[in-house]
Structure formats: C-alpha cells, structure tokens
C-alpha cells in the first residue's frame, strides 16, 4: 500500500470536511481542485476576492467573459444567487471573519500555525504578495493543502518557518498527501494518516514531535 495519496484524492478528502452552507475561498493552484470534489448534494458558496460570492465552474471556451474571472485571473461563471462587490468590500468580508474556510498552498507551515507561502526570500527576487496575506487571516479556518515534502524531500511542516511569513498563527489544519495535521497549542496533532503511513514515519519525515490524535473522536 502507498504511503501517500494523490492530489485529487487529497482534494476529495479536504472537500469532505467542508460543511454544508460554508463560505469558502480556494486559493490559486491546487486548492481550486477542491471545488470539483464537494460531495454530491452539499452546497457551498465560493468567494473570489476580486469581487464575487457564488463563483461557478469554468465556462465553455466561447462563453469566456473577461469581466467574470477569479483571483487567478481565470474565466469562471456566476451561480444563481451570486453577488458582485468591489475590492474594499470583498477584502472586508475576509478580514472581518465572515468566510468559514480558506484553503491555501504553502511553502512552510510552522508548529505554531505560521504560514509562509508568498516568497522564498531568494536574493534579488521581485516580491509579489497579492491577496496572500489577506487570505492567511481571511477565514474562521485556514486550511493548507500541500504535499508534505518539497520536490527536494524537505518537510513543509517545520518547527519555525525559514521563508518570509505570510501570516502568524493563522493556519488551523494542514492537509498533506501523507496525513492531516491539526495545529494545536502543543504542536501538530495527526488526526488522520493516509495509506500505510505510520506515526513514526511522519515524525521522521518532519523531524518534529507529533501528537497522535488519530484515535480521537472525529
């Protein structure tokens, strides 16, 4: 049996945790996959911070409307009951804590829930923040969806972030291809392991002391 699950399986697993009626912002990249895997019959409402609630899926090619895009500047559609608003209102919704869930990618997440996902801090790199810092504090729950390891095999779950921070103590849960980690005052708690991944392996891969919470009631 494998020690990790696919990106699509992870999107599906994360989607299962988003409750009926939730207002959700899916960050650019992998998190957008979550929208395609919401369980049948469950209604969630997608926010896109450029100014819409009720975002729908991508349109047919000949129906692309350059005035109807998401925060990744991709063409989208509007669902019945959608609403448009300007940038100050849209970011006010996030900052004011009205969204239930933001799902974001990450370079690193620290045990304290600090998030680094906007810059690798490489010398000479041109900075670009966009909505990253707003999204990091933009919902009641901020979920990170990511591979546990970088392509170089480095863990993305760390004691302290080495990359420039996007937000401090903002992540509530990390969905990785190996396991789900809850951020707790005592550090990362593993709530679910995928495949035949063991607790010891997760501790070995991350170099962290992890709490085993897989036996806890859901």
């Amino acid at each position, binding site marked *: 049996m494998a020690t990790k699950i696919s990106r699509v399986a992870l999107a599906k697993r994360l989607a299962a945790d988003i409750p009926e009626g939730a207002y959700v912002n899916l960050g650019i990249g992998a998190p957008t996959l979550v929208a395609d895997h919401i369980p049948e019959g469950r209604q969630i409402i997608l926010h896109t911070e450029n100014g819409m609630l009720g975002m729908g899926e991508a349109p047919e090619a000949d129906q692309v409307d350059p005035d*109807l895009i998401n925060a990744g500047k991709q063409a989208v559609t509007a669902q019945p009951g959608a609403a448009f608003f300007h940038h100050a209102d849209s970011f006010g919704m996030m900052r004011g804590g009205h969204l239930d869930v933001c799902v974001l990618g990450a370079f690193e997440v620290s045990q304290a829930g600090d998030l680094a996902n906007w810059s690798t801090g490489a010398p000479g790199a041109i900075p670009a923040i966009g909505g990253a*810092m707003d999204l990091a504090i*933009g919902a009641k729950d901020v979920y990170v969806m990511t591979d546990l390891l970088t392509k170089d095999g480095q863990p993305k779950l760390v004691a302290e972030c080495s990359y420039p921070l996007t937000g401090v103590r903002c992540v509530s849960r990390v969905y990785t291809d190996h396991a789900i980690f809850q951020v707790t005052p005592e550090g990362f708690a593993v709530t679910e392991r995928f495949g035949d991944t063991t607790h010891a392996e997760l501790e070995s891969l991350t170099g962290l002391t992890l709490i085993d919470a897989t036996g806890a009631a859901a």
Partner: protein
Amino acid sequence: MIDKVVPDIATALSGIGDGSCIMIGGFGRAGQPVDLIDALIDSGVGDLTIVNNNAGNGDVGLARLIGLGRVRKIICSFPRQSDSWHFDEKYRAGQIELEIVPQGNLAERIRAAGAGIGAFFTPTGVGTEIAAGKEQRTIDGKEYILEYPIHADFALIQAFRGDQLGNLVYRRTARNFGPIMATAAKVTIAQVDEVVEVGALDPEAIVTPGLFVDRVVPVGYRPWLDETGAFIGGVDVNGEPLTTEGEDA
C-alpha cells in the same frame, strides 16, 4: 446643466502632467481602462506614481508605460508575473520604486482616502516583512499594524455605463478597484461603454454616485458585448478574439 461627459479621450485626460499620482483600475483584463491608459502613454507624461494591483503584463498598457520609463514609482500588490518583464527590468535596474502592499490593505487604504479616515489598524501583514517599521498595537487581544490612506491626483477607471451626472455601474468582476479609486482621487476619469440618459440607471443599483466622478468618456461596447451591451463572447480571458482551429492549422 451638469454634464460630465467629454467628447474624446484626449479631453478626458487634460490636466495630467509630469509627476502626477495616478490610480489605474482593473484586475486582469477586467476593469482595465485600456483606452485611457493608451492615451496616457500617447500624452507623453512621465515621472508618474501609479497605483494598480499589478505592474503591467506583456508589452501593452501599463507594462508599456513602465517600459517607456514614464513611471517613477508603483504602489501595487503583485508586480511579479510571468509576463511582467518591463517592470522586472526597470526594477532590477533600480529605475522604478516599488511600494508593495497586500491586496486587501491596498483596497482599504484607497477606501480610507476616499472616506476621510486618517489611518487604520489592520491585522493583515502582522508578523511579516511588510510590518517592518510600522506601528503595531494589540487591540482586544489581537495584533494589528497601522496603515495610512493612499490619495491620488487622478483615477482612471473603466465602468460599464454612465450618465451625464457621472453615475456609474460596472460589469461583474470588472467592478474591482473602480468604485474605491473613484473616491480617492482629486479627479476621477471614467471610460464607459455607453452613456445613458440621466434617470436610466436604477438609483438602487448605482455603484459609484456621480459625486465621485469628474469626467465620463464613452468608448463603445467592449468586444465581447454586442451593441446593446449583451454578452456575445467569442474572446479569450484577455479579451482577444478566439482563433479558430482552422486558422491555427
């Protein structure tokens, strides 16, 4: 009678001189005042401070303005993109000043300017590089940094329809920065697809009341709309006509 409609783009831009601070609306292609930007380039003004979400894409519009060396400073949230080579070059050469602001703080700072707020405490950016040098305060157990308004001399925005009083409505996510930039500039210039009769816009649905708008210039419906303003499509997300497979072959 109040009539804010001007006959052409050149008139719309009158008064913009070297050294102006100019807000430019838009997020992606949506809401970009492309005709106003092109005319701004043609006008030859320079030493500009530009407020925009990005720092230009490809070789047109804001990217071209930057490439021509007309922009002294840019205030934006996301300058680095795959096709921001004009900005990248100027930035690496030390020929453009960058003030980078998280997108929501950018929006709120523009809104604050329009609403006469002197400064505000925001949680966005706390504990990050952008908090460096900024006043920090714990309020009700939560940490915030102090941010100040961004005012401009001119705002160039795109709206869908407008009237002689300057009332504006937008179209879908093209609304983005337009309504707040309109409030934050000394002179707000809106390009609209069509000018309609005063009274034709629903008073419940006017997004930018005319009070915030100084000049309105009609430029015709955008290419993905028909002559009544109805959506017809046939373009890509950047508004470029779709090439047929036959043409590609």
